[in-house]
């Protein structure tokens, strides 16, 4: 494609002057910290102990420790956290939030009234309430002895289930679906609203079935939104930390995700060097996801829909 030449209204130097504050801001708060984390990840920097006063360069040993395949799948090691994260993202974002959000949006499409307002308000509430508050609510909800869920299940004769102990990862997946579905729901709801009414009228006229409407109208038209939702939700879910407030990554690190692992190494063990190494890996994964998202976004805006 050919670059279009714009007629500049400002001399180049003035343009750079206007850009400077933003560049400076980004450099100070984004680029410099990233480089700093990268540098630290090759040292044994720690807050306490002898390495606290005289950190030394340790090469790639922080990274090789993370990828020590003989033990990395042990509970509490990096591999375990990585696998947990993948399951968490797949379960709560790809299989949970996005399809559920789409389902709710479709269910209430072109409907008005109390039920829609109620569902939308509740879902949005779950999304915007402070994390600490909802974490406490969920601890109470899934408690083995006094939790609401077990109380409800006991009505159906199901004996007490120890959710956080026996199913910690599924518990936080369930929590995160509840927590984040609103985003997909709102996004798809807006996308559905943008579909020209004539399409629906045509579908009515030719007597298209619900499945045909979905396959031939909804899916092609909301595909870009679907993609946006998948990537953004994956990105957020990958980094989300709120479940830590519920399970603390436990028991036995069975619900520990990479973000919790990073926190534990860097801020509980106070080993910044090792923590930075995990952070570098996390940033790389984020970077890849963000690149995919941005490049597709750009392609879409260049070619139009």
């Amino acid at each position, binding site marked *: 494609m050919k670059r279009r030449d714009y007629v500049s209204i400002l001399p180049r130097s003035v343009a750079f002057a206007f850009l400077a504050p933003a560049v400076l801001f980004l450099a100070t708060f984004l680029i410099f910290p990233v480089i700093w984390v990268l540098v630290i990840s090759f040292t044994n920097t720690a807050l*306490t102990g002898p390495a606290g006063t005289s950190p030394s360069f340790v090469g790639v040993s922080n990274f090789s420790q993370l990828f020590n395949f003989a033990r990395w799948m042990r*509970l509490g090691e990096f591999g375990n956290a990585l696998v947990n994260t993948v399951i968490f993202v797949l379960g709560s974002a790809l299989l949970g939030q996005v399809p559920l959000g789409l389902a709710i949006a479709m269910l209430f499409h072109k409907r008005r009234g109390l039920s829609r307002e109620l569902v939308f308000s509740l879902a949005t509430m779950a999304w915007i309430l402070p994390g600490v508050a909802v974490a406490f609510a969920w601890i109470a909800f899934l408690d083995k002895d006094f939790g609401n869920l077990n109380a409800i299940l006991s009505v159906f004769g199901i004996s007490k289930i120890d959710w*956080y102990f026996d199913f910690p990862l599924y518990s936080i997946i369930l929590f995160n679906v509840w927590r984040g579905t609103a985003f997909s729901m709102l996004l798809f709801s807006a996308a559905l609203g943008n579909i020209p009414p004539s399409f629906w009228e045509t579908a009515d006229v030719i007597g298209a079935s619900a499945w045909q409407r979905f396959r031939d109208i909804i899916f092609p038209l909301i595909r870009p939104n679907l993609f946006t939702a998948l990537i953004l939700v994956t990105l957020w879910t990958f980094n989300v930390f709120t479940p830590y407030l519920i*399970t603390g990554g436990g028991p036995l690190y069975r619900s520990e995700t990479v973000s919790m692992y990073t926190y534990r190494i860097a801020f509980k063990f106070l080993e910044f060097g090792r923590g930075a190494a995990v952070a570098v890996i996390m940033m790389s994964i984020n970077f890849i996801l963000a690149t995919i998202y941005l490049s597709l976004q750009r392609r879409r805006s260049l070619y139009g829909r």
Partner: protein
Amino acid sequence: MRWCWLVVMLVLGVGLSTVGETITLTVTARAVRGGVNSALVEWLEDRVFPAFVEWMRSQGKDVIVNFIQFGGSDEALKQQYALDLKVGRGADILGFDGFWIPEFDAAGLIKPLEEIVGSQVWDWDGWSYIPQGMREILGYRGKVYGLPIGTDVRVIFYRCDLFEKAGVIPAGSGLRWQPRSWEELLNTARYIKKVLPDVIPLQINAGTEMGEATTMQGWFMVLLGTGIHMYDFETGKWYGMHPGILEALNFYKTVYVDERLGDARLQLIPGARARTFELFRDGKIAMLVEGDWFWRSVLAPGSEWAIPNRNEVVDWAMMPAKEPGAGYRGQNFVTISGGTGFILNPNTAHPQEAWALLSFAFSWEMQMEFQKIQPRIRSRVDVPVIGDPVMSEMAKALLPYTTVRPMLPGYPKISYQAQLMTERVVSGQMSPEEAMAEYAEALKSIVGPESVIVLQEK
């Protein structure tokens, strides 16, 4: 040269404002009024601070003293301190656990009293009442960093009411229970499990969730009973593999996995320690290995998990060695001591006033005030345990048997590995042999292979 005038005026301004200025001192510790370590807040805020402010006023100085309550775990407080101190902030006086000292000192985050206050710190008359052993609680390499509140010991606490109900002790006999070996202890637990199936017979700390409470109240109490310590003070090496470690792990396996005399889940859930306190209070745990802190601060009337008739329903026994005479240094019974206290923040803007407050709090009068609120083993030899015969009896019986943790910067990391080792066994993830092999490997990477003892035979 206009800026020059500006500087002069600024200096003058600052100088003038400090004359007759009110000094604010802050103290923090893991203590909340009506919550954890409530007695400490009551003592400081109600007794020490008012008296100190009065005393300073009589010397023509205006001071305000604030206590910052911290309600999180010990581990969270340590994390807070490390972050605060690294950026040169934090309260003037910090409630500190003795075993953190080497790790913080090695990182240059804290300094000995002498360096913060100056040599006049030794002019305080209280020093002559604080013996060397007590000074070492907040000491490292011969330097003293603060003043210890006191020391402690660890025992088995048991519910007399459950013991009588089960028939371990004849009801109303006033007899006391004291096991002489692990087998006797386990037999009591087995018996209670049979007679009182709803009660958890024995809870002995394991797992990383409880942090240092696992190492001190759990791992050490079992390991010392096999005849070894975690660290060999003579050779300066750590025990990585040893039959004693294996015996200790097998004890855990018996309790939590093979016979389920204890509830492993209770060790692994978030907030595990508070949950054991709650269950012991409610009479759902028959025996719990804990420090005397549990008696005087957790169960004491008015505390968070208070048992109103504590003295009738709770008693204690010494932790036996595996066999009589098989314990550490050939002992029949084992225990270990730690201690907390207060250190000065090296970043304090008022080192002299902060030291004045700290030494004032450790004066005989103020320590006696503390004894009235919470009797315990104090660091001053001229301050007796008053009003709590149980506490004094515990101290008298167990101080001869006690030992301490090695004061080394690497200890906290190794302690975590010991917690992880117990966790792997009680959760059934690994056999004792596998868990010990992992522990030895981790030790080697922390302190170097040359500092790890690997022994297959006793």
